[in-house]
């Protein structure tokens, strides 16, 4: 039997559930407390009466090191959970079809598109958004500072996704020269075309990140 990799973490502190996070507390509370646990499929699952398809899922998402307990419609993407339910609006919705990269976040340190990830699929994994990059004292991450230093944006809408993608690009070892940076950053579109400055920012941050 394969263990359920997404088994619910037991006994974890949940700021949302304890009322510390107003937005997610309200979000979870509005749907009532009695939501069913999300069970794995078992051989006799089909025999049981199907639950109401609109019954929300009871999920705990770990965002920037903090747990958020939410009651979410199964259709909710990680992007919409972040923006509309948890209130972390730094992650941007561009195309919402996996074509622009504006919604890029890190999942267990790996860059993914939050618009094509169901919130339920992110349970049990560490989500890092743009809000989670700076230090506790507000010191910018080297990649954030490099984007400022090189004016690596104009309107700024794609910037959170660019920065998360760039951090991962460096950590993957795919930022060794400008051509490689351009190739491995091609999933993040910038309609203002700040591309040369973005490449320069990634090169600067790479040196400072010690990668």
């Amino acid at each position: 039997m394969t263990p359920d990799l997404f088994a619910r973490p037991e006994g974890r502190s949940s700021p949302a559930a304890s009322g510390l996070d107003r937005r997610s507390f309200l979000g979870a509370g509005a749907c009532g407390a009695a939501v069913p646990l999300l069970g794995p499929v078992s051989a006799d699952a089909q025999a049981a009466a199907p639950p109401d398809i609109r019954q929300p899922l009871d999920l705990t998402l770990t965002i920037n090191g903090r747990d958020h307990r939410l009651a979410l419609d199964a259709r909710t993407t990680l992007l919409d959970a972040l923006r509309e339910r948890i209130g972390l609006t730094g992650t941007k919705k561009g195309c919402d079809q996996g074509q622009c990269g504006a919604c890029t976040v890190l999942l267990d340190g790996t860059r993914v598109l939050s618009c094509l990830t169901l919130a339920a699929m992110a349970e049990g994994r560490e989500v890092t958004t743009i809000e989670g990059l700076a230090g506790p004292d507000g010191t910018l991450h080297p990649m954030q500072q490099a984007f400022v230093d090189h004016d690596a944006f104009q309107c700024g809408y794609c910037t959170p996704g660019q920065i998360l993608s760039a951090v991962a690009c460096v950590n993957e070892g795919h930022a060794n020269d400008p051509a490689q940076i351009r190739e491995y950053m091609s999933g993040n579109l910038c309609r203002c075309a700040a591309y040369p400055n973005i490449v320069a920012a990634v090169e600067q941050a790479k040196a400072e990140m010690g990668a």
Partner: protein
Amino acid sequence: MQPFHYRRADSLDAAAQAAGASRGSRVEAPVQFVAGGTTLLDLMKIEVMRPATVIDINPLADRYGAIDATDRGLRLGALARMAQAADDPAVRRDYPVIAQTLDLAASQQLRNMATLGGNLLQRTRCPYFRDVSWTACNKRDPGSGCAALEGVNRKHAVLGVSEACIATYPGDFAQALVALDARLEIAGPQGRREIAAADLHRLPGETPNVETQLGPGELITSILVPAGAWTRRSLYLKVRDRESYDFALASAAVALELGDDDTVREARIALGGVATVPWRARAAEDALKGRRLDEAAAEAAAEAAFADAQIREHNAYKVDLGRRTLVRALLDAARLEIRT
């Protein structure tokens, strides 16, 4: 997006049984598996797919997500991510055509999400399939017709087409597998079986809605690539509208075993971007065998590869582009320095 039941599968049997009453991997099947989600969720958002139940098979990744290389070949878990396989040292060294089909597909974010099995099953980008406001699409709605036949068909297929469908198979990785005679391990309610990767996809014929050989509840669990003298001298050439993060207009996966004086002992060729399914170009391979691989031989092979091409109003250029892509891929592969 239509409401659906979300379930996680904690075993292969449970996944297969939960989906067993469904209609295989078809677009209209009420139960769908999700792994990376990069195709399924996209198509659910635009209501091309409306499953009532989505079964998350990511919990199976610890059993079917590994990459193992031996002297006999390569075993790729179907739940390995595209990026994971692309970065594998053995894949890069001994099967460069596989690494290149993965490197040149999608973006790194999507490669981190999408699984190898899911990538094989990626659905067409035909705009008439993807836009439900077009009522005529035999893939979505059997018998409704094909809006692409007389529509804007610049990106549509010229090989393997029918009067019912000319939608292009969009992937890259499958071409490498077809060229290398890979096999697929499949698990389902009736047990396990193994098929040739080349037999996974079905030609559209009169039933373009039946895209693969997968039966109800069946899942690809592993991909087996046999070792061969040709796998190191291999490459993937992909031509597209923009140089990165785009689908192929024409592509060629090529693997060669050359004898003295560049005589072709074995040639393995598959074409992408030009066909309705991952396209093994056997006529081109036969045209090369025993010949010295020079420009004239490569052009003869390319001519053979597209001899049966059927063009539409806007895609005639694909025949020429496809030929030139194959010629360049063959000549580049012949020139590769192979370290032993």
